[in-house]
């Protein structure tokens, strides 16, 4: 009995050993791209086990039809629903290398941030290919789609998604004639500036972000600046979609009454992942923002 088990095991090993040889025979060339950190990422064969460290990339992978190959995600990746069934490797802000390696990935996709770059270096030392992608704007995401398409060997599908994203990003904006400020924190007041996806969304919806000129994704500003820039509507963000949002807590703060939009109670709450990052669903985000702004005006 024991002997037979041993023999079966041996036979299995022989079969396994034969596979790489056969693969090599069918392989045309290695897949290689240059990522946003100017690193060359080379794969011997199309990625089969992908760990995504950002919600934007997870959503993109599912849109590209390679969702079943995603074997790791962050706690923030909640779209589409199928993504929630993928094991999480943590919040991804400071990538947990051990949790990532445990998923035995053949490709890890990271966000372009100092912590992620360091993680990419560590993964490289462990001979796990790591792709660092900027994903701050729609055009970044279109480019990301094409790079991922090369590494999953589905350039045609990726190109069609990329062109769809580019069409959304270059669509003419309606003339909404509304100005807004995104408020992400009240004490001290933090607003979203020009270097952000939310600023791009406002532009595409035909609205004007009164802090578009801030050369940062977000920044602390004084209430005085907010009062003087006088946005028509204040937009806040919620983690999840809220069906009947209440006005933000700061709306009752005495200091905030200097702001016209607070006095006139013009608030819009954006909920859920639809607004949080660039995605192939951006056209829905633009339409929804436009609708909310028109009803708040």
């Amino acid at each position: 009995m024991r002997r037979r088990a041993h023999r079966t095991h041996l036979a299995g090993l022989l079969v396994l050993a034969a596979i790489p040889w056969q693969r090599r025979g069918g392989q045309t060339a290695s897949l290689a791209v240059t990522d946003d950190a100017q690193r060359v990422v080379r794969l011997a064969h199309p990625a089969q086990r992908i760990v995504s460290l950002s919600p934007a990339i997870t959503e993109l992978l599912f849109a590209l039809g390679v969702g079943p190959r995603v074997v790791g995600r962050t706690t923030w990746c909640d779209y589409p629903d199928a993504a929630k069934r993928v094991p999480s490797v943590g919040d991804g802000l400071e990538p947990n290398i051990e949790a990532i390696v445990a998923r035995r990935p053949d490709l890890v996709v990271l966000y372009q941030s100092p912590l992620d770059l360091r993680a990419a270096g560590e993964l490289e030392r462990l001979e796990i290919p790591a792709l660092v992608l900027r994903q701050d704007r729609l055009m970044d995401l279109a480019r990301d789609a094409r790079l991922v398409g090369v590494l999953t060997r589905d350039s045609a599908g990726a190109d069609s998604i990329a062109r769809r994203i580019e069409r959304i990003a270059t669509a003419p904006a309606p003339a909404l004639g509304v100005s807004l400020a995104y408020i992400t924190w009240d004490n001290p007041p933090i607003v979203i500036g020009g270097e952000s996806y939310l600023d791009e969304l406002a532009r595409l919806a035909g609205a004007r972000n009164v802090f578009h000129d801030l050369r940062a994704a977000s920044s602390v500003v004084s209430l005085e600046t907010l009062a003087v820039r006088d946005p028509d509507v204040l937009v806040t963000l919620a983690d999840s979609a809220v069906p009947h949002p209440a006005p933000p807590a700061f709306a009752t703060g005495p200091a905030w009454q200097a702001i016209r939009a607070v006095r006139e109670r013009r608030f819009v709450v954006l909920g859920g992942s639809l607004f949080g990052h660039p995605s192939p669903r951006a056209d829905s985000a633009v339409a929804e923002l436009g609708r909310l702004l028109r009803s708040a005006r």
Partner: protein
Amino acid sequence: MKWLGLGLVAALALLVAVALGPTHVPVAALATSDIVRSIRLPRGVLAFLVGGALGVSGAALQAIVRNPLADPFLLGLSGGAGLGAVVAIAAHASGALPVALAAFAGALIAMVLVYRIGLVGGAELDPRVLILGGVAVGAFSAAVTTAIVSLANAALLRNAMLWLWGGLGNASWSSVWLVCASLPLPLVTLFAAARPLDLLALGEEPAGYLGADVTRVRRQVYIAASLLTAVAVSVSGIIGFVGLIVPHAMRAVWGRTHRALFPAAFLGGGVLVTLADTLARVVVAPRELPVGIVTALVGVPTFALLMRQWTAR
């Protein structure tokens, strides 16, 4: 003459705070501008009161522990307030009031803890125990604060860090009235203890011989100074170095008599925070810096200069 000078500097600081801001308000319109009335003026006044409270608190704490390093930071009060605020922020208590109340509570809990550590050690408010207890409570608070912040998400982390570096962005007339209502009692208590504190500078035993009830004075002064810090921190976050450098700078001019030192430290602290907050609002406008960064950037070199003067003497 020097009182007149300090008074003028204080008035000038408030004037500058009202006249300067991230947006341009013409001088002629200053008196009628909504921005000045509802944003700049309450913020300037609040900055002054907070600075004054921290200055006096620092002078009082330095006197009872008879240590030039003492300030609300060293005695663990700021750490406790920071922990309280971060707990409130992590619990998604939105709005300025819950965070302010939590910070106030945190400072008071730190005060009680330090006091209890002193009692356990068998020496109520012994200066060494106060400092060691303060450092311990401060370090413990900092560890718990860092644990919460590092387990929280990125947005919370930044919001908490901003609070920990101080800011007067949500100043309003109601916060000014709140502080105005809370300051008189601890200020009067401290002023009344000015003479015993002078005696305490001679040493505990001599002070006792000269009629000072050392333990009672220490207890009163410790509680009053902690209250001042708690009130200041709850409306402004943690503004460092004010409680440390202002008393030293004022002692250089007004000497060691607390009857003069307390009012001078109030005005001096007020001037420092008002000007620091004006810089915080203006230098990177329309963005804004945490005011604690400005007090550190301006305060530390000033302190170094003062130190050089003292050692040269």
